[in-house]
């Protein structure tokens, strides 16, 4: 952004460029948390390589007094700690912005830009003279740049020191070292530069009802609250921290105080096929069981998913999407598995799927996923992504209703079986397309043979056409009926429908909302619906009907959501346009505004949204007779 006239106090983005494995994560976490504790809306996004040590890594922080949390690619300040990536990092600063770098070594002229301000601080030199041991020096270099930022951005030093005190209360020598480093960076910046910079922070009161958390931890906690007892998994980025979180909270909350034994069982499987089998076995037995994975894992689980669909076994799958296909870019985000999750497996299949847009919904939808899986006796997917799952989000506090009773669905008890004249596993006795289920070991009358081979409504093996079709037709009606039970779409619209509508899904939401507000400021109202569940219901159908043209905004190449809508609703294909971005970064409002330009005459001409050159270059716009 050429000028930062409207930027400045509590409204800018900056990023720290470091080397993977140098311990910068805790320094960046410290920064983020400090801003949050100052009451300023803030988001942190970790852009990391698929590597353990040595490659460039970035941490992006956006502060926004209005509460916008989407990624902003306009960096006003870069903390350039990695000479390897100097060229591109310095290139990315907006004109008039700042580059904080380590001037222990002089900066090569080729990196200099006339339109940005360079702030040199001899971080390495100071740390070498003040600290012993190479590891300590590397770590303290990170804390020293935090100290400089405290001065440059006017971060509340008391808040920062309070956090260090809390963290190192039992490790005096570490606290001393951290304090020393912070003070050192702070003093140097104050002495050599005009502090604070025009981009700076001011204490607010906008985060009191909020917490700062990532989606995977929230989803894991949702599993604990839903009463899940069996978790099976095979490690894969970016889903691994779901099971890490589950295991951590179970250790804390689920160990029987008398015996010291676990009220849960976490199995690290040999692969995702086995993880799916374990979930299906445990769910068949009556436990709430789940597996977290990412796209490649869902691919491997697909055979089992078909079995669970056809044999009607509740089972919960978390897909934290990453950039595919194949290994793709495993540490970048995408929404490339929408189609795969909704129709996973061979034959005619269709699954319930939930699409959270932030960690709060990861928590809530995790609980809902178990209820839906058991109510409809079918695989249920919680489809999030790397950005939601692994990044730090400011969200309204989670709430829990202590009167919540899990929906275990239609399961016959021993008493009911004792009284029953007969039990047939796949018979729709209530006319709601859902048959009664029994659990092993409960009563001899409940026994039946679960199989993936052809069966009639009595649960008997069959190869008969009519008997087979009767069952699969009921399955379709059953899953479709879940459309009214999945989370309702979120609608943003005025009293009268606008001509143009927007639809998006998952983490796209925040960029779309921000873009929509921008348009509103220009007097351009655009209705918007965020889809939160599949199958689609009447609300989706109605929104499509009410708008002459609808643009579907999503993060994959193949317009998967748009295709799903054309498959699953009455909406004519011509009515649907598409904005896709699939380069691996979270969506920003520039992607949306640039994508909308061909649709909104007032925006046309390409230059309507200055400052989003980055977005324009990798946004694909498909024009469908706007």
């Amino acid at each position, binding site marked *: 952004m050429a000028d930062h006239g409207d930027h400045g106090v509590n409204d800018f983005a900056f990023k720290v460029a470091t080397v993977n494995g140098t311990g910068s994560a805790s320094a960046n976490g410290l920064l983020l948390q400090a801003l*949050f*504790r100052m009451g300023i809306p803030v988001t942190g996004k970790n852009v990391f390589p698929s590597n353990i040590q040595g490659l460039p890594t970035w941490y992006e922080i956006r502060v926004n007094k209005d509460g916008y949390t989407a990624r902003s690619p306009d960096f006003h300040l870069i903390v350039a700690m990695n000479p390897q990536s100097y060229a591109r990092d310095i290139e990315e600063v907006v004109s008039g912005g700042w580059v904080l770098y380590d001037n222990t070594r002089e900066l090569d002229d080729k990196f200099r830009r006339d339109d940005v301000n360079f702030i040199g601080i001899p971080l390495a030199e100071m740390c070498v003279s003040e600290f012993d041991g190479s590891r300590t020096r590397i770590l303290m270099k990170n804390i020293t740049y935090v100290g400089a930022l405290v001065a440059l951005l006017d971060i509340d030093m008391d808040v920062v020191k309070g956090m260090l005190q809390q963290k190192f209360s039992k490790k005096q020598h570490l606290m001393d070292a951290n304090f020393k480093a912070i003070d050192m960076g702070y003093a140097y910046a104050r002495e050599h530069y005009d502090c604070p910079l025009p981009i700076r922070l001011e204490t607010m009161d906008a985060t009191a009802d909020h*917490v*700062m*958390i990532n989606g995977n931890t929230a989803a894991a*906690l949702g599993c*604990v*609250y839903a*009463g899940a*007892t*069996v978790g*099976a998994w095979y490690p894969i980025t970016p889903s691994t921290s779901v099971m890490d979180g589950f295991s951590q909270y179970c250790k804390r*909350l*689920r160990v*029987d105080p008398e*015996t010291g*034994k*676990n*009220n*849960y*069982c976490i*199995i690290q*499987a*040999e692969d995702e*096929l*086995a993880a799916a*089998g*374990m979930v*299906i*076995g*445990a*769910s068949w*037995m*009556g*436990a709430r*069981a789940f597996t977290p994975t990412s796209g490649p894992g869902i691919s491997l689980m697909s*055979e*089992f998913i078909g079995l669970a669909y056809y044999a009607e076994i509740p089972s919960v799958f978390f897909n934290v999407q990453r950039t595919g296909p194949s290994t793709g870019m495993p540490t970048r985000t995408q929404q490339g598995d929408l189609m795969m999750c909704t129709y996973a497996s061979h034959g005619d299949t269709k699954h319930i799927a939930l699409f959270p847009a932030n960690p709060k919904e990861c928590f809530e939808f995790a609980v809902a996923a178990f209820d839906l899986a058991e109510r409809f006796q079918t695989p249920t997917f919680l489809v999030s992504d790397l950005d939601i799952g692994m990044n730090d989000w400011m969200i309204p506090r989670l709430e*829990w*209703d202590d009167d*919540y009773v*899990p929906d275990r669905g239609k399961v016959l008890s021993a008493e009911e079986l004792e009284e029953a004249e*007969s*039990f*047939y596993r796949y018979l729709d006795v209530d006319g709601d397309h859902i048959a009664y289920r029994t*659990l*092993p*070991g409960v*009563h*001899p009358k409940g*026994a*039946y*043979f*679960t*199989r*993936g081979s052809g069966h009639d409504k*009595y*649960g*008997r*093996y069959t190869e008969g056409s009519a008997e087979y079709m009767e069952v699969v037709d009921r399955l379709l009606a059953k899953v479709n009926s879940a459309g009214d039970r999945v989370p309702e779409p979120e609608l943003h619209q005025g009293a009268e429908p606008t001509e143009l509508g927007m639809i998006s899904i998952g983490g796209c939401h925040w960029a779309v909302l921000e873009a929509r507000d921008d348009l509103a400021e220009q007097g351009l109202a655009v209705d918007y619906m965020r889809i939160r569940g599949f199958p689609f219901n009447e609300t989706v159908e109605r929104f499509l009907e009410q708008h002459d043209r609808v643009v579907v905004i999503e993060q994959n190449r193949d317009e998967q959501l748009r295709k799903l809508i054309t498959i699953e609703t009455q909406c004519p294909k011509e009515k649907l346009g598409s904005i896709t971005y699939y380069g691996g970064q979270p969506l920003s409002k520039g992607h949306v505004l640039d994508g909308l330009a061909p649709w909104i005459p007032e925006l046309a001409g390409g230059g309507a949204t200055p400052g989003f050159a980055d977005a324009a270059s990798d946004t694909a716009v498909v024009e469908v007779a706007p």
Partner: protein
Amino acid sequence: MSYIAKPAARHPQMPRNAIGLTPRDYEGSMSTLCAGCGHDSVTAALIQAFFELAVEPHRVVKVSGIGCSAKTPTYFVSEAHGFNSVHGRMPSVAAGANAANRELLYVGISGDGDSLSIGLGQFCHAIRRNVNMLYVLENNGVYGLTKGQFSASADIGSLSKAGVANRQGPIDPVTLALSLGATFVARSFSGDKDQLVPILMAGMRHQGFAFIDVISPCVTFNDHEGSTKSYAHTRTHMHEVVETDFVPLKAEIRTKYDEGSVKAVTLHDGSTVRLRKTDPEYDPGDRRAVLDYLGATAAEGEVATGLLYLEGTEDDMHSFENTVDAPLVNVPFDTLCPGSAVLDEIQEEWR
């Protein structure tokens, strides 16, 4: 199978077990396998083992993958829940089910294709994980259900029905199970019910993964001359290394063998397995020696049978995972859900 009331009248002469059931009560629906298929004999032995152990039918869980062998759980204990899952993946289903409810008796039926080709990984990991179950591998050297292709257990030189010799080395599930640390490893023959039944009973009572490889000839695709998994070949080359006598808890020990050659092993539930060694040098408690012995007999083309290795242990997947003694499915929701106050506490850490 859905529940269909059985006729109340029973043959008066039918023997009854400790809980008043007859062998009929452990049967399932009619087999649809080829007449003479070894798998049907294994089913018959299982029915007898369940009957003799006086197991409550609905406390049994039957699991299998896909294959002729995997179909057989339909043919026994119709009052038990059964799960015919996907090809080669039964071990994971069993592990998950067992994780959820550790109190039931798990019996898995597999084939050599199911366990040694497509499902080799899951088979190995179920052993490592020590899932508490009886795992029966009905081994016929071929894929029966897909019409007779060689399986990974086919011996070098064994002839297919069309006369083609197998060139690839076999995977021997017994030595594999031993090398992976299984605590109960047996081999038997579908045609030897006397040997099979006590081993199955001991396997059902064993704590942890109990593995039995049963040579179970495929009469349709692998029972011809030149096959090393035929009835004739197995009968002539089988060599019983240990005879097994299963002594249930509290039952009187019948002194059937001369004590010098008998090794008694007490199982987790207090029952005893008495192993009589036909070869005095053989020690069914020495894993390394058993592996050597099996290597030597295999080299001579002999098939060593019996309960080849047994270790009475307390361990299984649940002891590794330190799960509560009660089945997880019975833990009340109140115990599982920490409630709103704890959620508030946790969120204080997220600020």
